[in-house]
């Protein structure tokens, strides 16, 4: 059957011919014209957005670089020489942030998931566990992270308790894990409770135990659903690992502070900031990507 609209008198079309034209189909002149039009619109949109971006950014850049205080700002915050000289120290400090972030990230996931499961347990025997988890979340979500850091990082080592580590970084990490796992527990709990009860019923009806239901049916769906907010918390953790600088541990921020102290040039802080962005921006893009993929799954069939 030739391509294009052939409004022949036949209300009845041969079924066998159906298969043939699927492969040999080519768009009609109307469709070719429509595609050309859509392409030209797309090209136009791209051109408009490119021009408007260049103009807006150009005007902003001109305004900033031609303002009165710009030379002083440039010297104090964007000194290339200072950036180069301070870079190795700040990068070395950042290595501490990265290690802290990985160790804390894993601990937070484990503790957060445990707390979430504790809070969703049913049955009277589990009441103490539920109570502990609830109180824990209320407490550590409510306390400022900085307060926890000072309390644990400076307070506990000063006690010189037997068999208790005294390293600043260790207690800094503990404070971060305590605070973040309370948030992450709530994210997990929201995910667990968003799984429809009929899923549990179907699983229990097949003879799976409560624990097996949680492990094989509820958690896989819950974790998938809360991945975007979890990624969000992970990006936030990357920045907050810098807070241990207040304890005196030499991370990227503390290293920048030391470099700055010699001549009151603030460029090292900018260097540290850029390095943090190099960690968090790829993470944010990854989060978007994951969220978009999950959005597709939610769209459903449209046949």
């Amino acid at each position, binding site marked *: 059957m030739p391509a294009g*609209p052939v409004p022949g008198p036949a*209300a*009845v*079309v041969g*079924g066998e011919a159906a298969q043939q034209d*699927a492969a040999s*189909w080519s768009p009609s002149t*109307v469709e070719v014209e429509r595609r050309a039009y859509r392409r030209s619109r797309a090209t136009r949109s791209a051109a408009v957005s490119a021009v408007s971006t260049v103009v807006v950014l150009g005007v902003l850049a001109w305004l900033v670089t031609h303002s009165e205080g710009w030379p002083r700002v440039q010297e104090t915050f964007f000194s290339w020489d200072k950036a180069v000289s301070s870079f190795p120290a700040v990068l070395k400090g950042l290595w501490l942030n990265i290690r802290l972030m990985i160790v804390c990230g894993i601990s937070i996931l484990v503790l957060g998931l445990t707390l979430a499961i504790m809070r969703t347990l049913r049955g009277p025997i589990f009441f103490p566990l539920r109570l502990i988890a609830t109180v824990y979340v209320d407490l550590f979500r409510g306390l400022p992270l900085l307060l926890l850091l000072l309390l644990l990082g400076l307070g506990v080592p000063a006690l010189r308790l037997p068999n208790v580590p005294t390293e600043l970084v260790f207690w800094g990490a503990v404070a971060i894990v305590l605070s973040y796992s309370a948030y992450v527990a709530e994210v997990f709990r929201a995910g667990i409770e968003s799984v429809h009860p009929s899923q549990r019923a179907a699983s229990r009806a097949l003879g799976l135990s409560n624990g097996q239901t949680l492990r094989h049916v509820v958690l896989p769906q819950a974790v998938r659903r809360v991945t975007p907010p979890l990624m969000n918390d992970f990006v936030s953790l990357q920045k907050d690992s810098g807070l241990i600088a207040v304890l005196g541990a030499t991370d990227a921020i503390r290293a920048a502070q030391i470099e700055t102290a010699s001549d009151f040039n603030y460029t090292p802080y900018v260097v540290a900031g850029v390095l943090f962005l190099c960690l968090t921006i790829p993470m944010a893009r990854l989060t978007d990507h994951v969220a978009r993929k999950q959005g597709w799954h939610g769209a459903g069939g449209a046949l």
Partner: protein
Amino acid sequence: MTSESATTPTGGAAPDAPLLTVRGLRKSFGEHVVLHDVDLEVQPGECVVLIGASGSGKSTLLRCVNLLEQVDDGVITLGGLDITDPRVDADEVRSRTGIVFQAYNLFPHLSVLDNVTLAPRRVHRVARAEAERRAMAMLDRVGLAEKARARPDDLSGGQQQRVAIARAMVNSPQLLLLDEVTSALDPELVGEVLDLLRDLRAEGMTMILSTHEMGFARNVADTVCFLDGGRILEQGAPAEVLGAPREPRTRQFLSRLVS
């Protein structure tokens, strides 16, 4: 593909000015071609019923007519305007057609009344009082005026589907599309929805509906189209297509339904 003038209800519509024409329509999702070269004409006041197995392309055809899908090829005109032209305002075209879905698709966070007034108020900029007056008239029409303040979740499936029809009808569309609107309903709730559609049909509403209710199709349709594998295999008056099908495939489909 002239509609059967003998069964055209309003009779006044000029047969040379169809409300909707579909010519050489093709639609695929990836590799899968859902509609092949579909031709269809709908006269004002006509009721066209699409029948066919699941996956035969009935829903996709309706979604193409409402511009919910971008067609691969072919031309659809509504009231003489080529609505597949990318230059037309799709929202304006959609506001002239109403669609009702199998799963109702009511907005669960809005009351029944707010579901019906949403489009008049936000799209057509009708004042709240006027929109509510029209919505109440339409809800009264579908027999649910007393449920105006209820939430969709508090209604039965049949009631929800009647609200969805009221929501589609409140903008006075030229064409009403109904996609298996009774398939998700309990058997005893199907009747109330079909009765409503029969009334709308008697008032001269132009509609295209897909259904598995053959008795209803026989009763209400001016034209029945049997779709198979994305093609209209057979179309004509219900007595012909349902009573004396010419195609073996149509006969096979109908015999399976009866048994």
